[in-house]
């Protein structure tokens, strides 16, 4: 035990292999509907894991995560959209420095580009907004989200406006999804266990004390925001190439609240919490679907969902995987 604990990287290697085998088996044994649900779980897990870095570990309660997903989704979609279909959907050709009219990007670099652009956006908006605290930060990041969706609506020449983009090639499969989930968990875990993550934890616990120990909070807030945004951007790209259609409306209040809810239900600031939260809420949703259809009461899922949410918050506000801390005030 000790030995392995000394090299937790080994755990990751083993875990990665198990995951690979699991994904391989799932891909071959399960029917496509179940694989579809697994992919959805994976994508949401990536977003919650990345949100956990900002909201859980650094204590910045951001509600703007859907905006980063939107940036990633639109970027990767525009880069990877097949040349042949561009005309039918009135999408512009890529400018020459991005590949020109002859070239559409492969999936992986397109995803990374989406993530990077989301990171850059995070840095730009973070510099002013991360000065705010508590609810003010939440509301400002929510505002940022609305502004991003507004641009997605209004830059019609690029994004086709509110109608969104359809017929996005379906590149996302279970391997891509779980590869990225693995990467995001790994990166967040490494960050949390390095001086960067320790600085973030310190900021969450007590910003003034952190500063008095030589940590410049703004730097690490921005770092956490940007890394979180990167994976949100990637998840957005995966999502776009999974649902094969995006429109600005999707990346709005509902999505943001859904991700935040998953994270809180799972447990903020824990390693497994975000994944448990995302997976269990999606599992619940699809498990209830036959019930809803059987009873022909459409909307039942949301009702049960909401009830569950309230009950969990009342009895275990720190989430399923969260530990209760007795905090001194």
């Amino acid at each position: 035990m000790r030995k392995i604990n000394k090299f937790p990287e080994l755990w990751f290697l083993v875990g990665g292999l198990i995951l690979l085998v699991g994904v391989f088996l799932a891909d071959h044994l399960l029917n496509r509907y179940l694989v579809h649900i697994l992919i959805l779980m994976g994508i949401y897990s990536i977003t919650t894991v990345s949100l956990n870095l900002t909201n859980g570990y650094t204590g910045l309660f951001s509600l703007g995560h859907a905006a980063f997903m939107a940036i990633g989704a639109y970027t990767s979609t525009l880069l990877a959209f097949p040349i042949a279909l561009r005309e039918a959907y009135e999408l512009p050709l890529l400018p020459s420095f991005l590949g020109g009219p002859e070239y559409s990007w492969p999936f992986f670099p397109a995803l990374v580009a989406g993530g990077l652009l989301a990171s850059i956006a995070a840095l730009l908006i973070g510099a002013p907004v991360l000065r705010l605290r508590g609810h003010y930060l939440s509301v400002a990041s929510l505002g940022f989200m609305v502004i991003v969706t507004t641009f997605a609506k209004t830059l019609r020449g690029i994004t086709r406006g509110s109608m969104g983009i359809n017929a996005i090639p379906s590149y996302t499969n279970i391997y891509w999804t779980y590869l990225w989930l693995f990467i995001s968990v790994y990166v967040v875990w490494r960050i949390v266990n390095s001086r960067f993550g320790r600085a973030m934890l310190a900021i969450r616990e007590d910003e003034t004390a952190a500063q008095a120990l030589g940590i410049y909070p703004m730097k690490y807030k921005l770092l956490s925001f940007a890394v979180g945004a990167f994976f949100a951007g990637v998840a957005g790209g995966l999502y776009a190439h999974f649902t094969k259609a995006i429109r600005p409306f999707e990346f709005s209040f509902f999505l943001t609240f859904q991700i935040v809810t998953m994270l809180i239900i799972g447990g903020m600031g824990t390693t497994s919490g975000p994944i448990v939260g995302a997976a269990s809420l999606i599992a619940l949703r699809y498990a209830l679907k036959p019930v809803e259809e059987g009873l022909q009461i459409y909307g039942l899922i949301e009702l049960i969902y909401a009830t569950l949410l309230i009950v969990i918050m009342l009895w275990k506000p720190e989430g399923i995987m969260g530990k209760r801390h007795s905090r001194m005030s």
Partner: protein
Amino acid sequence: MFSLGYLLQQTMNGVVLGCIYALLALGMTVVYGILRLINFAHGALITLGAFFTYFILVRLGIPLVATIFLVLGFGGLMGLVLDIVAYRKLRGGPEVALLITSLGFYTFIENFMKMVVSPQPYAFKAPSYLTTIFRTSFLTFRTIDLFIIGASIAIMWCFHLFIKKTKMGIAMRAIAENLEVASIMGIEINRVISVAFVLGSALAAFTGFMWGAKYGQISYDMGFLTGVKAFVAVVVGGVGSVPGAMVGGVILGLAEILSTAFLPTYFSEYRDGIVFAILILVLLVRPSGIMGVKEEVRV
């Protein structure tokens, strides 16, 4: 390019819309000022209030004055229920738990309403004395517009007096400032907070009624975006400030209307973006809002 009548008309449109936001913001600001709770369920109460008035005013034909009192009572009751069922237990807990709970309530009420009233929008046929049209050479407006402005100002004034002059109002401000000291003044904290919830929710339900009467159509999901915007109005105006809620609401209403009225039509879709850009700007320049009190940062 624009005539004077156009300018006046659009300003009036903005003010009427702003008054609706302001009333909602008023209910939210009281609760938020005390509890630091962004109450998303507030939006659901708009829906509940609108459908409640629909059934009693439009369907049963109960007189307007009675309707107003009934809807206020109904909203208040719902607020009390929410407070007792959940918020009271969470008091002093993590802020996010409160936030998520209120979101849960919103989702619950919205979907519950969807089941009860169907997903179809309802036509809300307000009594004709509310929808009489007045035409002058400059302005076109209806009784309901005047009613909204009048009611907003009246309620705002009453609320101002309530907060300033009554025992309960002073107690609310005291709790917002320092809960512990307020409790040693002999103030029953829970009771006062419940009253705040009741008042805020009553106002939300009443706004739902005005909404229905003004636009003539209500639906199960009408409350969400309105609720979020009302919260923006709270923050822009300054948390916990009654005149702030009014100012924030009217600024928001004017921003929405005037941005579509005076920018080229192509920019219409920037409307929500502009509203939230104003929010971020206000936060960056004056983090405590236009009329808000600066919060002390203790080292």
